[in-house]
């Protein structure tokens, strides 16, 4: 029971962190309800989004978002969830359409992302998914992650290899981005429908992913949480190496 206190602390911290993250999705305003007063503002947002889209996205996705042969997919039906995901994780825009989209610093400001997302939303498609990590069950999240996600992302979300690409580590992902990725299946990832991963399970997944950012490393230095490769390196280069130093000290000769 000695570990009850740190464990409880860690759980509380984790829960707080998740609650904090869940509390501020990066682009929640994109779903602003189209009330009578807000409609003008939304229209203004869409217009600026369209302009920005035509300047920065149309070389691959086409002027009207219908995509261009061999360069970029049509965005009809992609919806706000895809636009927000790709833009807020810095995966779009790509310098070269044949590059793999990887997480980088977003290249647009918050306001620009909101505008672009609002514009892409007008092309039809699902809104940004709602997710409430704090409402999820961390145990269900673990189970679901093991079944659906660990094959590519590694059981603690440290990322992994897919032949022909990589599955990114998830430590930077917000709950909303996790939910978006689950529903979209960005780049080489499959997507998961509501029938397969319902709202509670999605909340739970988000909660588990939040937990993996700082899992309970009861054993000390986590060396990356990816298992035997770093362990082997520590065994050789820290363990055996320090013992070799001792051996050299002991084996130093008596002067002849």
């Amino acid at each position, binding site marked *: 029971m000695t570990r009850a206190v740190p464990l409880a602390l860690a759980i509380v911290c984790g829960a707080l962190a998740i609650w904090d993250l869940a509390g501020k999705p990066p682009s929640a305003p994109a779903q602003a309800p189209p009330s009578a007063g807000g409609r003008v503002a939304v229209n203004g947002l869409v217009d600026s989004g369209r302009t920005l889209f035509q300047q920065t996205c149309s070389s691959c996705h086409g002027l009207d978002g219908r995509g261009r042969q061999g360069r970029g997919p049509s965005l009809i039906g992609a919806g706000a969830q895809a636009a927000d995901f790709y833009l807020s994780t810095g995966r779009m825009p790509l310098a070269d359409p044949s590059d793999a989209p990887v997480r980088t610093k977003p290249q647009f400001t918050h306001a620009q992302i909101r505008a672009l997302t609002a514009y892409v939303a007008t092309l039809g498609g699902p809104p940004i998914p709602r997710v409430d990590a704090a409402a999820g069950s961390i145990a269900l999240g673990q189970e679901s992650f093991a079944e659906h996600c660990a094959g590519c992302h590694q059981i603690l979300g440290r990322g992994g290899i*897919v032949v022909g690409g990589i599955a990114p580590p998830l430590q930077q992902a917000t709950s909303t981005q996790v939910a978006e990725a689950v529903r*979209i299946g960005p*780049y080489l990832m499959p997507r998961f429908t509501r029938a397969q991963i319902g709202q509670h399970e999605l909340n739970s997944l988000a909660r588990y992913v939040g937990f993996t950012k700082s899992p309970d490393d009861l054993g000390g230095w986590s060396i990356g949480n990816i298992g035997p490769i770093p362990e082997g390196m520590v065994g050789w280069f820290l363990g055996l190496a320090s013992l070799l130093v001792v051996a050299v000290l002991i084996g130093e000769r008596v002067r002849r």
Partner: protein
Amino acid sequence: MRSLGRMLGFVLAAILGWRRSAQRHAEELEGIPPGGRDVDPRRRHVPADPRAELLVALLLLLTGACGVAVVVLLIVEVANGTQWLGLAFGLGFGALAAALIVAGKRVVPQELAVEERPKFTDPEAVNETVEMVREGGEGISRRGLLAGAAGVAAVGIGGALIAPAASLGPNVANRIDDTPWRRGTRVVDARGRAILAADVVQGTFVTGYAEGASVRDVGSPIVLVRLDPSVLRLPAGRPLAEWAPQGLLAYSKICTHAACAISLYRYPSFRATQPRPALVCPCHYSTFDPARGAKVIFGPAGRSLPQLPLAIDAATGELRANGGFSGSIGPAWLDVDRGGQ
């Protein structure tokens, strides 16, 4: 530029120093006969170093203190207990190690001694032994008979000793090919809910199980994906209507290479610039093409994943097996059913 010059200087000095020490070593070795130069290397030196003794005493005290710390840490519960305990334990042994090593090198007499190496070869003893062995068989006339009988005894009792091992496991027979899938078996998810054909849309990756099968039954788990029927090129003898209704495909989830779970589905969101759909095993990255009967397109697996024919229940829309797998599931063995490959 100057730093470069200084670096060169260092390197040069290092090489020269190395050469010189190598030369010295060569001189030392020079003129030593194959057995070594016969000098007497014995030395004895009594350090008489009170400061070293003090150091050893201090280190021993530190060891004792660390030992006490371990006990205290076990009584008083602290946060990060494993770390503190490891530190106390490790430092305790470390200090004891240091004390012993310092004592071994600076406190007790240092001696270089010579010991004769025992001689091994003694032809006389060998001959006598051989002779004694021979004498043990004196007066025996039916050598061949006895040797043969002894051989029979050895084989018999040896076999009898090994035979119980056979009870460790059943014969393979058709145990691997006897999976829980029959025509009409419902496909369910990990929680036992039926999977509907409509749930498996293009781009999703669903793990299904045979209804009622144990979670430990490797014959049960399958991967379900849906592809456009127009891109499917299934092997001959697998008509789409019976094996892939509406482009729905089911393959065994157990890799045909080394039995890991096929838990990666690579599905491109834009075909033009991205690799085609593939099922991948996370252990050795065997890569299978679901559109072509899960044929191996990369990695070490020696045969395709066995396919499970599917049917869609017209009334409920539930997925059911339309028969058994197209071949043996899991890793290959002598009598593996390769599914017509």
